[in-house]
């Protein structure tokens, strides 16, 4: 009896708030603040539209999280999404059957992931440099060879596509449901499949993972392929919701928003920590922040200041809660 308690005590010495708790609490506080300050914030329909507006960001954050958990980073995620989807729209508008165009788009995304994964796993180039360079390459290659238009509109015949973007099931927009489904799949993958567990092992300590017999290189490649394909999926969601894909998204601050969601949610950039719940918490917090500020009609520049400060705060908390592991840290880690 006393021994049992002792074990329990050791397992849970004393309760410390994790970043996920802090984020959830902050989200609640913000929710209450905005409900008081921003007219129209506190309503079911607004909360639904709030979630809809961040669902694409959420899916991209899921893609990023799988890489970050494995101690990597994918800065090419936005160009991959934009180029693969803009190209598949171009093909589709040119008369190719939709399923074939989508397959080609997904294929392009997967190949980008494959190349990145190979460079990182086999050529040992740090992820941050590989993906930074790859992002520029993908965008340049796409602009030059694949897509000539700045904004690529879905052709008029793409009725089904538009329907998917605008339908609601039981009052919940399809985009939110897709985000939910993706989150569930990622959660199951990370928690209950060997590959998912290996990603954690790899993120926690790559050398130990290798010694334990995990084929670290294959898992690394898998991470980047998954992230790229998911990014393509997020692009398809964008196309479904605004009937187009704008090349300018590459030049936007979207990559910072994605990192903001991942880091703020509490997935440490040092790898091996956090899960899909963190991504959801981060997404919801950013959703509340953006929606509330829009409702209060806060000027654009001030919104950026707020977002920047929140990211900074999140990184500081991240460093305090997830200090660098001196034994496993290596050059190129972030």
């Amino acid at each position, binding site marked *: 009896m006393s021994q049992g308690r002792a074990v329990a005590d050791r397992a849970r010495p004393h309760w410390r708030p994790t970043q996920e708790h802090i984020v959830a609490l902050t989200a609640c506080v913000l929710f209450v603040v905005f409900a008081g300050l921003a007219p129209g914030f506190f309503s079911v329909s607004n909360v639904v*539209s*709030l979630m809809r*507006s961040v669902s*694409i960001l959420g899916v991209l954050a899921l893609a990023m999280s799988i890489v970050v958990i494995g101690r990597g980073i994918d800065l090419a995620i936005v160009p991959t999404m934009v180029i693969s989807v803009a190209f598949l729209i171009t093909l589709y508008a040119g008369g190719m059957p939709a399923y074939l165009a989508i397959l080609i788009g997904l294929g392009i995304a997967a190949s980008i992931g494959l190349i990145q994964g190979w460079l990182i796993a086999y050529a040992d180039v740090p992820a941050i440099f590989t993906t930074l360079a790859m992002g520029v390459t993908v965008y340049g290659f796409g602009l030059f060879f694949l897509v*000539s238009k700045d904004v690529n509109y879905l052709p008029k015949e793409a009725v089904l596509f538009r329907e998917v973007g605008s339908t609601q099931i039981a009052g919940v927009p399809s985009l939110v449901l897709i985000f939910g489904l993706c989150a569930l799949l990622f959660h199951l993958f990370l928690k209950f499949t060997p590959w998912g567990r290996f990603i954690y092992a790899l993120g926690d300590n790559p050398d130990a993972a290798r010694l334990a017999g995990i084929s670290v290189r294959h898992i690394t490649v898998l991470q980047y392929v998954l992230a790229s394909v998911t990014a393509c999926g997020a692009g398809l969601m964008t196309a479904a919701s605004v009937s187009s894909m704008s090349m300018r998204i590459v030049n936007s601050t979207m990559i910072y928003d994605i990192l903001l969601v991942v880091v703020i949610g509490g997935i440490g950039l040092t790898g091996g920590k956090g899960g899909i719940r963190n991504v959801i918490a981060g997404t919801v917090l950013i959703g509340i922040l953006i929606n509330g500020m829009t*409702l209060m009609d806060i000027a654009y520049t001030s919104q950026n200041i707020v977002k920047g400060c929140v990211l900074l705060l999140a990184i500081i908390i991240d460093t305090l809660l997830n200090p660098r592991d001196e034994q496993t840290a290596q050059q190129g880690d972030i």
Partner: protein
Amino acid sequence: MTYMNALKPLCFAALTATAVTLCSAAFAAPAEDGLYAESFAAMKGKKVVYMPNALGYDLTEGWLAGLKNEAARLGFEVIVRDPNWNIDAGVQAMQAVVREKPDLLVVQPPDVTSYSRLIQKAQEAGVPVIEVNQMTTAVPDVFVGADWYAIGVANGEAVVKACGQGSGKSGKVAIVQGLITAPASITQVRGINDVFAKHPEIKVVSNQAADWTPSKSNSITTTVLQQNPDLCAIIEAWDGQAVGSATAIHDAGKQGQVFLATSGGGEKTACDNVANGSFTHYVSFDLWDQDRDINNLVKLFLQGKFSPGKQKLALYTPNHEITKENLSARSCWTMDEVKKSGG
């Protein structure tokens, strides 16, 4: 002997060629009127650098098509520098222009200040500068482009008519700007606000920036419609981003109830959007007109001996207001038409 025989036809050919050249020099142009030969000669081989903020959309591709058509006819060279929305890349390309000293620079600045210093430097280096559609704080030799203030006023007045006194509507209006540092956006909003200042019944419930991207405009408008179900009108700073709002209005089931006013170069997609009810009021600064203006100026500058930085001229494009009622087959243009015969 055989050697000489072989040379004979060559000599003959050379003689004929010389004779032909001499003759054509003597009767240089088919219709010499004192200007023809001189003006063509002045333009031939000159270098014009064209630098939009990005290629790939209706306006910048249309301007380029117009320039290329005249370049092919008159023999000047168009060198394209495409910074692709990247201001750093644009600044570097501008520095290259200052170094290389082409005969003329046609530039669409991304915002008010980024290129200002370099535009002055280009002028000091002897390169005349034509700014298209957006002005910098440094004054170019000539500005060609949309009259953004008038566009703001036109859209503002259309909205007042639809939502103001006697309309029975809420009078609630949302403004979706483009890039907040872009003159096209700043000046338009000034025009809109000046109109609304005279109409206290109009209430601007939201004034946000979408950075010229449809997805951002979509999420802003979705939120605003949520907060203000009785929203009367939305003014979008550019048709390229307004499709985002149009989709948001459609998804909220409010098409026909929310007045959407926007503006652009008058490409076919915009007219299609007016026809299908996505845009209620569309102000077109016709790109076809702008192409002609740009080309005329290019021709003048390539022939003339202007000293860069001395003239301060402007050609503001006239606006055409397009609605479902006055829409016609001639209201808009297609890229194929411009490529074939624009400029």
